[in-house]
C-alpha cells in the first residue's frame, strides 16, 4: 500500500474505504458475518415498522426492555474510553498513547449503538426530528432525556473529530498540533463523566420508581463502566495484537488490569451497599429489588439472571485482583470477558426491567424479549462492530505508517 503519497481529504476518505473493503479471507468472512447480522436486524425491524412495538415483549407495565437496557450499558462502554484518554493525553503515558485511538474507536462504535438503540425503541422514529432544536421543540433543561440527547451527540462529535484531526495529519505525514486538539481532549474527559451521570439521572430522577430513585445510581454507573469498558478494550487489544501487525505492549494490559480491578471493587462495594439498604429493613420501596433477587408471587424470571451475573462479577473481580496467572493472557482475557458479560447482564436487563416491576399500582408481570427484539439487537451490535472495525483498521494502518516514516 503506497498511497501515503496522496494528499487531500478525498484521497483520505478513499483510502479509508479501500482499506475497509480489502483484506484477507478471514477479514472478509468476518465482514460478511457482520453484514448478515445487520441484514437480520433490518428484517426483524421491518416487522416493528409495520406492526409497531406490539411485536416486542414490552407492554404498558414493562415499557422499556432489551433496547433501553443495552443502551444504558453501552453508554458506559462509551464513557470508559476516558480511562485511556486520561493517562494518554494528560499524564503523557507513552504506552497509552499508542492505544488511545483504539479506545476512541470503541467509544464511537458504542455511541452509534446507543443512538441506534434509542431509534429502534421509539414508537415514532419518523418524528425524531421533533427533538432537533430550532425545527422541533426541545424540552431543555427540564427533561433529562433532552440532556442525554445533547451529551451523547456531543460526546460522539468529540470522540469522532479529535481522532479524525490527528489521523488526518498523520495520514499526510505531519505531526498533529497538540495545542489545537488539547482543549477538546480536556473537554471530552469531562464530557465522558457527564454522559454517564446524565444517563444515570434519567432513571435516578424518577420518584415514581423507588428502585431507580437512588443517589448511588450515578456513581455506580461510573464504577461499573470503568470496569466493563476497559475489560472490553483489553479484549479488543488482544484481538488486534493477534490478528494485525500492530504490536501491543504487555505493560498496557497490566495497567488496564489495575484500572479494571479498582473499578470492579468499588462497583461491588456499592452493589453490597444497595443490597443492604433494600433488605436490612424491607420497606414498600424494596419490592422491585425483592422481585429481582428473589421473585414475587411466582414471578421470578430475573432471579437466575441476576445471580449468574453477581457470581460472574465476583469471580472475575477476584481473578483480576489476585492475578493467579501473573498476567498470563490465558487467565486475564477470559476473566475480562466474564466481567464484561456479568456487568452487561446486571447493568442492562438487571437494572432496567425490575425498575418497572411491579407497576406503580402493584401489578407484577414478567418480561421476555421476542425474536424481533433479539434480532434487532443483533443487528445493532453488528452495526456497532462494523463501525469499530472500520475506524480501528483505518487508524492502525495510518498510525503504523506514520510511526515507520517518523523513525
Amino acid at each position, binding site marked *: 500500500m503506497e498511497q501515503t503519497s496522496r494528499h487531500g481529504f478525498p484521497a483520505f476518505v478513499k483510502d479509508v474505504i479501500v482499506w475497509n473493503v480489502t483484506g484477507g479471507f478471514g477479514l472478509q468472512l468476518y465482514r460478511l458475518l457482520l453484514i448478515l447480522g445487520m441484514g437480520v436486524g433490518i428484517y426483524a425491524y421491518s416487522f416493528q415498522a409495520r406492526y409497531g412495538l*406490539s*411485536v416486542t415483549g*414490552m407492554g404498558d407495565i414493562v*415499557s422499556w426492555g432489551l433496547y433501553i437496557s443495552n443502551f444504558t450499558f453501552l453508554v458506559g462502554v462509551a464513557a470508559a474510553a476516558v480511562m485511556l484518554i486520561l493517562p494518554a493525553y494528560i499524564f503523557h503515558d507513552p504506552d497509552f498513547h499508542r492505544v488511545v485511538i483504539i479506545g476512541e474507536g470503541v467509544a464511537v462504535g458504542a455511541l452509534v449503538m446507543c443512538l441506534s438503540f434509542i431509534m429502534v425503541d421509539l414508537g415514532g422514529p419518523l418524528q425524531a426530528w421533533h427533538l432537533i432544536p430550532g425545527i422541533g421543540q426541545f*424540552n431543555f433543561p*427540564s427533561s433529562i432525556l433532552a440532556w442525554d440527547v445533547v451529551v451523547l451527540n456531543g460526546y460522539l462529535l468529540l470522540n469522532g473529530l479529535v481522532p479524525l484531526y490527528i489521523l488526518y495529519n498523520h495520514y499526510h505525514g505531519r505531526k498533529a498540533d497538540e495545542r489545537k486538539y488539547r482543549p477538546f481532549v480536556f473537554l471530552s474527559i469531562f464530557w465522558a463523566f457527564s454522559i454517564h451521570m446524565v444517563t444515570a439521572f434519567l432513571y435516578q430522577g424518577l420518584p415514581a420508581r423507588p428502585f431507580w430513585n437512588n443517589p448511588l445510581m450515578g456513581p455506580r454507573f461510573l464504577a461499573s463502566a470503568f470496569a466493563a469498558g476497559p475489560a472490553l478494550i483489553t479484549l479488543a487489544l488482544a484481538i488486534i495484537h493477534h490478528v494485525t501487525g500492530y504490536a501491543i505492549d504487555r505493560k498496557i494490559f497490566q495497567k488496564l488490569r489495575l484500572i479494571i480491578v479498582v473499578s470492579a471493587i468499588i462497583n461491588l462495594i456499592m452493589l453490597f451497599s444497595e443490597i443492604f439498604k433494600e433488605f436490612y429493613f424491607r420497606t414498600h420501596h424494596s419490592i422491585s429489588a425483592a422481585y429481582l433477587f428473589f421473585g414475587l408471587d411466582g414471578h421470578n424470571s430475573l432471579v437466575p439472571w441476576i445471580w449468574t451475573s453477581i457470581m460472574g462479577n465476583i469471580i472475575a473481580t477476584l481473578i483480576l485482583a489476585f492475578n493467579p496467572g501473573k498476567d498470563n493472557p490465558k487467565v486475564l482475557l477470559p476473566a475480562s470477558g466474564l466481567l464484561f458479560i456479568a456487568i452487561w447482564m446486571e447493568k442492562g436487563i438487571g437494572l432496567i426491567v425490575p425498575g418497572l416491576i411491579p407497576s*406503580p399500582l402493584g*401489578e407484577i408481570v414478567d418480561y421476555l424479549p421476542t425474536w424481533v427484539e433479539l434480532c434487532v439487537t443483533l443487528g445493532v451490535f453488528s452495526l456497532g462492530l462494523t463501525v469499530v472495525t472500520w475506524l480501528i483498521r483505518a487508524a492502525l494502518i495510518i498510525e503504523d505508517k506514520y510511526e515507520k516514516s517518523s523513525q
Partner: protein
Amino acid sequence: MIKPKKDDEAAELEISPSAHNSRRNFLKGLSIAAAACSASLVTGCLPDVKAESGEKFALQWKEYFKKHYRLMTQQEKEETVARLERLAKLQSGLDLQISTRAPRENVLYGYAFNITRCEGFMECVAACVKENNLDRKTKTQYIRVFEMKPGQLDPSTGDGKYFHEVPVDNKFYMATQCFHCENAPCTKACPTKATWREPDGIVVVDYDWCIGCRYCQAACPYFGRRFNWGKPSIPKEEVNRKQHYLGNRIRPMGKMEKCTFCIQRTREGKLPACVEACPTGSRVFGNLLDPDSEIRFVLKNKKVFRMKEDLGTDPKFWYFID
C-alpha cells in the same frame, strides 16, 4: 415469541367493520358511489382512485410537517383539523368532528372519588372505553378499579383483576386514572414538550408531536399513561365521532395517550363520561375555582386524601369517605 398472525392484518385496518353490518355498509357505499357518480357527471370528470390517493398523500405530507399544537395559530389549528377530518373520510369513510376548543376562563377541573359508595360495577370503565375510542384489541382502559380489603388504602394491595359479581361483602372499591397533577412528573420528563398541563388543569398529549419514547410512562407514579403498541382498532360503528384534537381522536400507532377528563365533553360544559355513567354517584367532577361547585363542597365537608401525597405531585384527584 410473537409472530404477526393473520388477524393482525385485519387489525391493521384502523377501523374494522363488523360482519353483521356489512350489508348496511354495502348499501351505504352504494349510495355514496351513486352520489359520487352524479357529482362527476355534473363536473364532467370521473373520480379516479389515483386522484384520491394523491390527495391522501398530499394531506399526509402536510400533516407530517405540521407544528406543535401549542405553536399553531387558530387558523393553522383549523387547517390541521380539516386535514385530519378529510383523511378519516378517505381512509375509513368516517365523518368526524374534531374540535380545538380552548380552555374555559376561570376553570380548574378537579375530581373526587367516593370510596364508600363505589360498588365496583365498572360502568365507568365501559363508558370511558366507548367515549374515548380506546383500543379494543389490547383492551386499553384509562380507569382501573381495584377491589380492596378493609384496612388498606393503597390500590397496589388490592385486586385489579377481579371478575365476579359485585359488590362483595366486606370489600370496597377504589378506582384510579390519570390524576392530572399540578406538579406532573410526566410533563417534566417529555423531551419534546409533547405533553403539558392546560390552563384548566388537564394534562394532555399532542399525539402527532409525541415521538413514542415512553419516558413519561416511566415517570408517572400512578400508572396513568397508556401506549399504542400497535395500531388501535375500534369497530367502525362504535367510533365516537365527536372528538377533540387533544382528546379522544383516534391515536396513531406508537404514541402515548391518557385520560383527558374527557376534554371533548368537559370543555363543552358536560361531565366526563365516567361521572355520567356511574350508577352509584361515587364520582364528583367540577370547577375548583367555583366556590358553589359540588367538588368544593366535597373538599370542604368530607374527609379527603390523595394517593402518594409524599411525592409532592399535587394531583387534582381526591378520594373521600362518606
